Each structure stands twice: as structure tokens, then as C-alpha cells.
């Protein structure tokens, strides 16, 4: 086109060429918009599927291709994505709740009532928030169990296991800080228990006579509450932790967690995963149909083995669509489960918090009730000692188990499923026996009323159970000549113990933490 053509005068009664081009462009907007969105075009070829993934800000955390072993349902059961999906649900519903919730004791409870009764969809959003939080905690615990039982924590993935433990702690912290916000009797007294557990190092410093000079317990409680009692200071800092600090920490750790998955070579797989996953379907085209021009924008010399070195892509599939449909499927399933629960069951709200009227029994959130059961004997051991031992033990597992046999397989390693089943028996028998003994006969103070508390701190159902589990684990290490066997036994016992203690704390403990077979037997006030 010459410079002059655009200025030619319009023929009388017809559109100018510029006008025609304008209209043509206007009609083409939807198509052009879509094309501008997908810079490499629709993901219909393997090359464009690759570009779709690594060219997208949000998606390029994923690998472009994933091994078919990873995509099997039985490999991961989608638990990690389920936890993330539940977190996203809590994030979205939480942001919506933030429009109406007021974090000051005088108005917090009433703002929750208003959300429940008059805010459009308020009841629904609050229910989803509560249920998604519960689903998240459950999913995180199950995900940890899955990673453990498939020995996916082994080198080079030890650090990712550590990040996962940090995520567990942050998840529990999010749930705990959120628990206080409704400012009802349930919230107030559950946090009273939590704060007093934070103060429990005094049990040790008191026994040593150090409290006047060195009081970490008191300091911890004061930092947690911002005051000597639970009031507006505590509410504000719990709110801040719950809506900003912990979610940001979680998001950062989740980012690192996914990044490490990439760098560690994707999900852990058995050494013979290629053979076991078999030949691909005829419809899938695992090889590039075009000569690759550039599959990766960055190249770096790295030490060690990368997933793609030495192997072709035959056993891998493009992340788009295979991985993304899996993730979306798990996400929507999580949404569905949370919606069903939300429509069926309301998030609880008891009376307004009343410092003069303690709940009896005052119970922590369910995931802490196993600990509270142990706290009933020794606040320090149950609240801090045993959790620290457990977390330390869990953190050490990948560094102590340097074996390679069975990585990627469920219950992989010496002993296998039969060892796990026997450990279930051992774990259940031990915890039920100790609980039955303590409930039926009492503990040391029944027979020695004046025994110093430090004795009970050191010898209580929690420590005895831990010792039994540890002894069993050591025995397994010797018997199978394998750290993995010991770890399998110990972790299984820990899960059984956690489950039984949580059930006892939830259902069988009533006022004054006395044992009752059923809540219908609880005495009246």
C-alpha cells in the first residue's frame, strides 16, 4: 500500500478501505484475543503443549512432561493437590469472610452471627471455610503418610520432606489461629488450653527451681497472647497470623516445595517404573512429531542426573493435558466434597466467650486432642516434649534411611505390607493397653500422691508409649537389618497412636477429663 492510498477519497455511498479493515478487525477480535492469550497457539501439538506450560507464568512451575507412573491414581491418590485445593478454597472463602469479620472482641462474635444470618451466602462461605480447613488438615496428614509409605522422602528428596514438615506445622498453625476468631466459648477455651501448653516449660523450670530466673514458658505464652489473658491483643495477633503471615509463609513454602519437586526429578518412582508402566497407548504420541527447535529456554550445567538424561520421553506424557486434567479433577473433587459437607453441616458457634464460665471439658481442635490427652498427665511432655520428639524423628527419617530398596512403591523396603500390618497391631495394642491402664487404674499419683511432678513429666503414658514404639523400631532395625524397616514400623505405630489418642480425646473424655463411654453419661453442671 502506498502512503497515499489510505487517504484516497471514499467512493460515493460505499465504505472506505480503512473502514473495511476496521470492521474486519472488529469481527476478528475474539479470535485475535484468543491468539494473543496463547502466544504459541492452541496446545494441539506436543510442541505447542510444551510451550503452553513453560510459557505461562502460573503453569511453568510444572514440568513440561510427566512420567506416566506419576499420573497413576494409586501413586499419590492426589493427596498433595487435594491439600492445595483445600487451601485455595480456604483462601477464597477466607478473603470473602474478611469483608465482614471484625477482629475485636466486642464485635467479633456479632460479626460472625451477621455473616451466618444476613450476609448473602455468608453461612455457605463460612461453612465451606471451616470444612475446607478440616479437609486440608486431613489431606496434609494423609499426604505425609503417602510420601512416607512410598519412601518418596529418600535422597535427593530429603529437603523437600523437611519443607513438607514445615508445611504441616504452618497448616496446623493456620487452623489453630483461625479457631480463636469467632470468639465463642469453644474458641476462647480451646485457645486457653493452647496458651497454657505454651506455658508448659514451667513444669520443668519449676521442678528445677529456675522459673524466677529463666521462664521460657511464661515468655512463650506472653508472646502468643500479647497479654496475660486472652483479650483483644490475642485476637488481633491471631487474626494477623491467620490472614497474612501464615498464608504468605504457606504460599512461599508451597512454592519451594513444588520447585524442589522439579529439581529433584519429579515424583519418586520405582527404579523399574518404565517397565511396570508398560508401553503407551497407540493414541498417545509420546515422541515429538516435529523436530524440536527449542524445548527449554534455559540450559545449565548441573551435577548429578536430571530426569531426561539417558532416557527417551517414551514413558512421559505432556503435562498439558494429562497432568492438568488430573489436577483439575482432584481440585473439583475436593470442591465437591467441601460443598456437600457445607450444605449438610453448619460450622459450630457456641455462646459468646465468657471468661467467667469455663467450658468443661474445654477441648482443643480435634487434631490437637491426641496431644491434649497426653497433656492431661504432663503439660510439658504432652504439649511440647512429645511433639518435639515426634517432629524431630520425622525430620530425621530421610537422613537416617539412606537405603534405595523399594523407593516409589507402596510399603516399599524390607518387610513390606506385612511388616506394616504387624506394626499396626503392635501400635494399637500398645496405645490401647496404656490408655486402658491409665483410665482404669490411674497413674503414678494414685499410689504416690506426693511424688514430684518431674517424675510424672518423665514417666507418663506419652513417654512410655514413645519408648515402646522406639524400642519396637530399634528391634525392627536389627531384625530386618534395615533402617527403613524400623522407620516403617515407627511411623505406622505413630499413626496408630495418634489415631487412638485423638479418638479417646474427642469422644471418650468428658468433664474434668474423666473417662465416659458416651457423652450421654456426662454429669450435668
Amino acid at each position: 500500500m502506498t502512503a497515499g492510498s489510505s487517504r484516497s477519497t471514499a467512493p460515493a455511498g460505499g465504505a472506505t478501505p480503512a473502514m473495511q479493515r476496521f470492521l474486519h478487525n472488529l469481527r476478528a477480535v475474539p479470535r485475535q484475543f484468543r491468539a494473543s492469550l496463547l502466544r504459541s497457539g492452541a496446545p494441539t501439538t506436543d510442541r505447542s503443549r510444551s510451550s503452553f506450560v513453560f510459557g505461562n507464568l502460573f503453569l511453568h512451575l510444572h514440568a513440561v512432561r510427566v512420567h506416566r507412573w506419576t499420573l497413576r491414581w494409586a501413586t499419590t491418590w492426589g493427596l498433595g493437590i487435594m491439600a492445595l485445593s483445600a487451601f485455595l478454597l480456604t483462601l477464597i472463602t477466607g478473603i470473602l469472610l474478611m469483608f465482614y469479620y471484625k477482629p475485636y472482641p466486642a464485635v467479633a462474635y456479632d460479626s460472625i452471627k451477621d455473616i451466618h444470618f444476613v450476609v448473602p451466602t455468608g453461612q455457605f462461605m463460612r461453612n465451606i471455610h471451616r470444612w475446607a480447613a478440616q479437609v486440608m488438615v486431613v489431606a496434609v496428614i494423609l499426604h505425609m503418610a503417602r510420601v512416607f509409605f512410598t519412601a518418596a522422602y529418600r535422597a535427593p528428596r530429603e529437603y523437600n520432606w523437611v519443607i513438607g514438615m514445615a508445611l504441616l506445622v504452618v497448616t496446623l498453625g493456620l487452623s489453630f489461629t483461625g479457631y480463636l476468631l469467632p470468639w465463642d466459648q469453644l474458641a476462647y477455651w480451646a485457645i486457653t488450653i493452647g496458651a497454657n501448653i505454651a506455658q508448659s516449660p514451667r513444669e520443668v523450670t519449676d521442678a528445677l527451681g529456675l522459673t524466677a530466673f529463666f521462664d521460657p514458658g511464661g515468655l512463650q505464652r506472653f508472646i502468643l497472647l500479647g497479654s496475660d489473658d486472652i483479650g483483644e491483643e490475642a485476637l488481633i495477633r491471631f487474626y494477623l497470623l491467620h490472614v497474612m503471615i501464615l498464608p504468605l509463609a504457606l504460599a512461599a513454602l508451597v512454592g519451594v516445595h513444588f520447585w524442589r519437586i522439579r529439581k529433584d526429578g519429579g515424583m519418586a518412582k520405582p527404579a523399574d517404573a518404565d517397565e511396570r508402566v508398560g508401553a503407551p497407548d497407540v493414541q498417545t504420541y509420546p515422541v515429538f512429531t516435529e523436530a524440536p527447535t527449542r524445548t527449554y529456554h534455559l540450559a545449565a550445567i548441573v551435577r548429578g542426573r536430571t530426569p531426561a538424561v539417558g532416557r527417551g520421553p517414551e514413558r512421559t506424557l505432556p503435562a498439558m493435558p494429562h497432568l492438568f486434567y488430573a489436577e483439575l479433577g482432584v481440585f473439583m473433587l475436593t470442591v465437591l466434597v467441601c460443598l456437600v459437607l457445607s450444605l449438610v453441616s453448619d460450622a459450630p458457634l457456641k455462646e459468646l466467650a465468657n471468661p467467667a464460665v469455663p467450658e468443661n471439658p474445654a477441648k482443643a481442635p480435634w487434631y490437637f486432642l491426641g496431644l491434649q490427652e497426653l497433656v492431661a498427665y504432663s503439660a510439658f511432655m504432652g504439649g511440647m516434649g512429645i511433639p518435639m520428639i515426634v517432629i524431630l524423628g520425622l525430620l530425621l527419617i530421610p537422613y537416617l534411611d539412606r537405603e534405595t530398596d523399594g523407593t516409589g512403591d507402596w510399603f516399599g523396603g524390607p518387610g513390606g505390607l506385612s511388616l506394616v500390618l504387624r506394626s499396626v497391631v503392635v501400635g494399637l495394642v500398645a496405645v490401647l493397653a496404656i490408655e486402658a491402664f491409665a483410665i482404669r487404674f490411674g497413674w503414678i499419683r494414685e499410689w504416690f500422691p506426693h511424688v514430684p511432678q518431674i517424675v510424672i513429666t518423665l514417666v507418663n503414658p506419652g513417654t512410655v508409649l514413645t519408648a515402646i514404639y522406639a524400642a519396637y523400631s530399634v528391634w525392627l532395625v536389627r531384625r530386618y537389618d534395615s533402617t527403613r524397616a524400623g522407620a516403617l514400623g515407627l511411623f505406622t505405630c505413630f499413626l496408630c497412636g495418634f489415631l487412638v489418642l485423638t479418638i479417646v480425646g474427642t469422644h471418650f473424655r468428658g468433664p474434668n477429663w474423666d473417662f465416659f463411654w458416651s457423652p450421654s453419661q456426662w454429669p450435668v453442671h
Partner: protein
Amino acid sequence: MNTLRANKWLLLASSVGTLVLLGVAAYRENVSREWRRLQRDYAAKLPPAQQAAFTVQLRQVYNPALHASDRCISCHVGMAAGETGIKGDRVFGSHPDVVHDPLQYGCVVCHGGQGRATEQADAHGTAPFWPEPMLTRTASVAGCGACHTHVAVPKLDELRHGQALVERNDCLACHGLDNRGGTLRPGGAPGVQAPDLSRVGAKGYTRDWYAHHMRERAAASGGPWRTSMGEISPQDQRLINVFLDSRVGAPRLVDAKAVFHTLGCRGCHKIGGVGGDDGPDLSREGEKDPARLDYTHVPGDHTLANWLGQHFRAPGAVAPGSLMPVLGLSEEQINALVLYLQSLRRSSYPEAYWPKDRVLAQRFGAREFAADGATLYGTFCAACHGLRGEGMRYPGMAAFPAIGNPDFLAVASDRFISATVQHGRPGRRMPAWGAAEGGLRPAEVEAVVAHVRGFGGVAPPAESEPARWVRGNADDGQRLYAANCASCHGPQGEGKEGPQLHNQVLLTHATDRYLVETVRRGRRGTSMPGFANPGSAHRQLADAEIEAIVTFLRTWEVKG
């Protein structure tokens, strides 16, 4: 099926399920909410012209000073601003004509319940975890007590007598009063429209109403002025005034409160800081959370009203360990007391909303009960000493003395009774009513004493001697005391079946003549014999011996 297809099916099923559930949630939220349904029912009952103008929307009464965000009018739409009530409808009727505008005060401040709720069970407070359920329809007048904490009530029998006079003198022929009376005659014959008297106690009325009525009667030639008006004696006029002064729009509550002040409850219980310390403070009894009460021995509903009623019938069964005796009350009295207790709700509202009665009581110390001796006695003393001073005998408790006993009043001076009332009997059951903040003022003590004096129908003793005149031998007295008195009064005078003699208030304020005469004459109706005369169960004592005993008693007195 390969994994991709499985995942696609999973995604499809979950997504469809989610959409369905979101649809369900949207339907629940926007169509099937209880209050929406009710408002649609209401609209259907409106005349067509108003139907079009009516919109289904959430409504509330908002008054931050009273902490009110009351959404009751989302279901009870007939009471909302700008809406018309549907006559006779239980839900959609308009609010009865009451003193305070519900659209300004909200609903919960009077009725209780959960104002912020929009579901019936939650709003009426019968759902779990709401500590203040709504008052029942018959008890709704108890809600007045939330702000009107010190409604002044007259003496019960004057109140009832005044009410009887109003009815007997045909005042209701022309005046409306507490939803009765007024001028409508059968057949629509016209009559005289006189002012409604239901709230004249609060609003005021002309004090010379009688003179006005008589003038009108003299001027009238026929009609109700002639037929319904007659002479009323000055005493009856006073009682009618007492009755009218109590008309504040809550007749049943005023009556219930008057009943309360005849049963001596404040002898053990404090309300608003006035009363005794033996029982729990009742100032907020109406706010008790029914879910926290023990219903083990309470048949019937798990409501506060039922618990209170059963408690009156059998306190020791309902509240184990209770010191409260079975009072033997009639059902009518129990119903009145339960209503009154439900009105004890002491809520905290800004002073701008404090009613006159509360200001008068809390700022200026006005009493909420009548100031005459009979009412004061009925308020503080009657539960232990009996309404006529006859004393009370409750099962499981030592008998309370009959202070109306003529033998006692014949020897006890007014000064002695006054001192006993003020200082009590330390260490025994009689509290010191003059000392503590919750007790009686000097004028009130004198009124009570005068009332007690009236029980016996005997004149007080002439106190012509010095208070201390006995000159006996204390050692003889000790010997005689041990032989004759210790069996009932205790070896150290600590009191057993007989009163405590080793009591500083008694010894300080009793004259020697009182002690001597009591021993000489005894006290009929009690176990105390008259030792001046012989008897089968006691030895006769000479005057010198009696004086010796009194001398010995005086050695117990701590002087100064």
C-alpha cells in the same frame, strides 16, 4: 480406561455435582429461606393494591445504643415500618399498643431472644447455645424489668384494695384500664369517653379528680355522670390513688412485685444491692442461662420459668444443699414470683435510656417498695418471723422466734427491738439490718419496730429504772444457771433450744428488768417457763435467785 479419561470423567462428575450443589445453595439462599417464604405468605394476604408495593427483603430494627440489630420484623412483617399488620394473624399481626415504640427500641430488649437471627428457632432463642431465650407470651411483661429495674410498688393489700375500689365504684363504666372498661355499651349506645387509666402512674393525673367528678355530677342532668358517680370516702380515695399511682402499663408485673414484697424474700436475698446475704443475689435471676441449670429433679420443660417454679415448690430437691426452706406458697403466689424473678434482668443501657424509676433508685436512693412498716416488715422479715410475727417453723431448721409474742413485747422496749433490728445477733441467724449497705435506714427501722409493736397489742414496758440495777451474787448465779438454764441455753450461754444469752448485742441492749421479767414470767408459746411460779418441769426460783442469775449473765458482757 486410561488415566486421562478417568481424570476427565472425575472432572466432569465433580463439576456437574458442584454445579448442582451450587444451584441447591442458591435456591436455599434466595428462595427457600424461612423469612422469604413468610414474607411471600404475608404478601399473599395483603389487598392487591398493597401487594404490588411490597418487596420481599430483609428488615431489621437498628439501635446501636441498645445493641439492637433485631431482625424479628423480617418474619413478623406486619410490625415493620410502613407495613400494615394483618388483624388476628399470629405471625403477621401488628404490634399491640405498648408504651415504647418497637421500631425505635427493637424487640429483644423487652422480649429476649436472639435479635440477629433470621431463623425461627435461633431467633426465639430455643436453639442450642443461645443463653437468653425469648420470654413466653404470658411472661412478656417481665421484659420491662430490663430497664425498669426499680418500678415502685405499693403495699400489696392496699394495691388490691385500691383495685377492688376502682371496680366497685364503677370507674370502669367510663374509663379504660388494663384492657378492660371504657364506654362501649352493648348495642352501640353512646357513652362518655373518659381517659384511659392504664398508664396514669407514669404520665400523671389530676390529683383533685374526685372534686372534678363531683362538680360534673352536680352539673349533669342525666346519663353516666349521674348514674355511675357517687361519693367516695377520703380513705377510699387514698387507696384509689395508691392504685392509680401503680398503673404503668404492666399490671401483672406490679402485682407480682407487690406479692414478692410480702413474703420476706429480701431477708435472705439481695436485689439491686438491698437485702440479706444468706441466699444468692437475685438481681439478675431472669438472665440465667436455662442450659446451665440442673434439671435432674425438675419435671417439665427445661426452661427457666419452670425451674424457678419447681424451685419454689421444693428448693432442697431442685438445688441440693440449699438452705431455702419449703415456703408453702400457693400456686398463685408461685406464678407471681416466677414472673417477677423473670423480670430481674438488669441490662446495661446508656443513661439516656434509664427510666425515671431507675434514676430515682440508683442516683437518689429512692426505695422501690413502699416505705410503711408493714411493707418493710413484709419485705425483709416475714419469711423468718411470719407475716403476723408468729414465727416460722421450717422442717430441718430450728424455729424462728415469734416476735409478735405478747409476752415478749410486754417486756421488750422499742429501743431494745430497734437495737436488735439494727445490730442483729452476731454469730446467730439474725442479721444486722442497720449496718450493712443492703439494709434498713433509721427511719425504716423505726417503722418496722412500730409495726412489730402492733402485733402484740400490748403497750411497751415503762422504763423507769436504770438499765443496770441487779446486785446479786455471781457465783450463786453461776450455780443456779448451771442447774436451771444451761440445759436449754447451753452451759456457756451459747444457745441450744433456747436463744443465745452469751451474745454481746443482747447483753448490751437488754435491760436488767427485761432479763429478770423474762425469767420470772417466761414466754408463753415457747419452751421458756416462768420461774417465779412453781411448775412440774422446773424449780421455782425466788427473786433473789433470779437476780443472781442475771448478775451472772452480766459477767459475760464485754463493756465498752
